[in-house]
Structures are given as C-alpha cells and as structure tokens.
C-alpha cells in the first residue's frame, strides 16, 4: 500500500466515483456501460493499489485505468468485428441535466457529437473540457506528448463546434 492505509485509499476512491462515472459516461455514452467500466476500474485499482504512489494525483491515476479498460474493451470488440455505432449508443442524463424538451435535445446533440468523435479525440476532450485537467495532466494520464493532446483537442473541436453552434443557434 506504499504507506497509505487501505481504508484511506478506499475512502478516497469512493469520493472519486462521481468524477469517474462522468468520465466513463463521456467515453461510453450510456450509464450502464459507464458503471460497468467504473466498477471494473475500481477492482483493478484495488488489485494494483501498491502501484499507486501516495501524494500523486489519484484522479489522474484512476482516469488512466478507466481509459485503459475502455480501450481494451474496444480492442476486443474490434477483433470480434463489432463496432460502436453512435446511433446504437443509448444516451442518458439520468434526468439531471435538462427538463425542457429543447434543452434535452441540445444536450443529447452534444452527447451525440461527442460520441461521433474518434476515440483519442474523445478521451482528450473529456479530460480537458469536462474533467478540467491541464494539457500536461491529460498528456500524462493518456501517456502521450502534450503536443498530441493539443492537436487532438483542436481536431475534436473542429468537428464538434459546428454541431454545437447549429444546435444552440447562438452565433449570429
């Protein structure tokens, strides 16, 4: 446990779950799969807790586990010939985000636009725009150079912005 008490680690992990679920939701697009992903990530974290260095950012460590498991799962599906069709991905906001039909529509379009992005761009956008990580933190979490984070972010936004502007009708 590297000097960290198990109950402290578990307590910190529980506190992180909402953010992990949000991150997983932004990757998978639906809550049941996000919860399965977070559950598997928590198991993996507890099995490998000795690798966690106390004093370092636990959220980044957990984001990486979630992202790795998600990637592994997608690879398995790729080998089996399955694919993720955004039209088949069911979206949910658990009723928290919007109650008006047009607001629900806008948020659903935002989720759909996110799910249309390639995997790498979606990961970076989720970590930076939603989870609030710095470019460097996102790069360390994903084990890629900062330049890669910036270029993926740029491409993600090029694809995303027109859809969001259209849905919001904000710009004149």
């Amino acid at each position, binding site marked *: 446990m590297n000097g960290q008490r198990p109950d402290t680690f578990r307590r910190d992990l529980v506190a992180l779950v*909402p953010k992990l679920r949000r991150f997983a939701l932004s990757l998978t697009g639906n*809550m049941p799969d996000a919860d399965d*992903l977070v559950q598997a990530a928590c198991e993996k974290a507890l099995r490998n807790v000795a690798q966690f260095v106390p004093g370092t950012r636990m959220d980044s460590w957990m984001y990486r586990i979630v992202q790795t498991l998600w990637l592994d*799962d997608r690879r398995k599906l790729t080998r089996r010939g399955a694919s993720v069709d955004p039209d088949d991905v069911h979206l949910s906001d*658990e009723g928290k985000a919007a109650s008006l039909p047009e607001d629900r529509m806008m948020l659903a379009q*935002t989720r759909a636009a996110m799910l249309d992005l390639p995997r790498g761009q979606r990961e970076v956008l989720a970590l930076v*725009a939603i989870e609030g990580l710095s*470019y460097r933190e996102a790069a360390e979490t994903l084990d890629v150079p900062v330049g890669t984070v910036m270029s993926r972010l740029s491409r993600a*936004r090029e694809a995303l912005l027109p859809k969001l502007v259209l849905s919001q009708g904000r710009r004149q």
Partner: protein
Amino acid sequence: MMRETTLDKARLAAFADGELSPEEAAAVVMHLADHPEDQAFVDDLMAANAALIRAFDAPMTAPVPPAILAVIDGQQARAKVVSFPGRRAFALAGVALAASVALAVVLVPGPRPSGLTVGPVAQGQVLHDLLQSLPSGQTVPLTAAQDLTILATLPTTAGHCREVEVIDRAAGRLDMALACTADAGWRVDVVLSEPLPDTPPDQAYVPAGGIETEALTLWLDRLGAGMALDAATEAGMIARGWVR
C-alpha cells in the same frame, strides 16, 4: 494587412482552457477586445466546454451506485466485463419504478377520462390512432374541454416512446403519459397528473410542471431514451407504422 489579424487558434484554445499564465491571458484579453472574430471563437470554445460539462454531469449529483460501493468495500468479487454497444440493465419494473416516481408526483391509479391509463392501448381507441399518426407538436381536441398533444418521440432500447400530454380544463388537471411501442401496438407505461395552474381560458398551451417533466425524464432514462426524433424521422416512423 497581416499584422495581428487573428491569434493562433491553439493559443485561443489554451486561453479558453485556462492554460495561459495571468500575463499571457491578459494579453489575449486585450487582443480579443479588438478582434470580434477571435472573441467569437473563444465564446464558442467556452460554450462548448460548458455544454459538455452539462451533457455528462448527471453522475456528479447522483449517489454512488451500490454495486460500485460493494466493489470498493471488497464485498463483491468481480465486475462484469464492459460490452458495447450499450447493454441496458433495467432492474426497475413498473411497480417498483412507479413507487419511486410517486414520491414526487401523483401517480394516477385508475382509468382517466382522457384515455391515459397504464396498460396496453387497444386498437380502435382514439389514443391508439393518435399515437400511430399524430406528429409531435400538434394538438387535437378530445372533447370540448380536453386537448391532447404529443410532445415528442424518443427512441428507446425496445422501440419508441411518445410523451403525451392531455389538458383537461374542466377538471383543472394536466395528465402526462409515456406511451411506448410494445407487441406491435402501444402501451402506456406511466401516467402522471397534477393540478392545472390558473390559466386564462383562451390560452392554448399550458406548460407541464417541472416535477412532472422531471419524473417522466426518469422513466425515459430508465428506458434508455435517446434524443427526440426530428420531424422528418418521426414522419418516416409514422409512415412505416412504427416498424423499425
């Protein structure tokens, strides 16, 4: 004139993402004051960030699921392997879910004059015909005092659900129901009711209360509902008799 027409988009993105030092950010702010195109781009970035946060924010206010807590507490052996596309796991069936919804709103127990009654919608009923053919957003009178509007059509894991609203001015009540495709027909899954707010008699539209809308949203989420169909897609479903 190439001088300082626009800033590099990466730099504007770094500004929007809070990556710049206070001095660098201040310089960008000064630049934006004189460059509306760049200001618009930054506005878009910030709006997109805000939309993304809202779109995926539901878990931040939800309790930690018991299954995840059990794993962290060491009470459960293994999580299930994640699979895609989304598998649904709706443990909450009608009665249990109804009980939870009833905490927030009145769950209508028996038949309603509007025809909004939980259960299958028989062919030949007016409601059946309207669910089959009425586009969302159109209001039709059921009686002199009752108007029915289908608010939206949403795809679910099992088919489609339509949000139905009936305003009964005589009874001073607003019913809202969720009717979903089932067994080549329709089934009303839930009916919620609340008193109609004081409304001028000539007002055509009475918005549903927030509580009702939220309660229906819970149902829709349990059903895996996606975004509302646009008019053309919905028209296509109506033309095909709701066969996917």
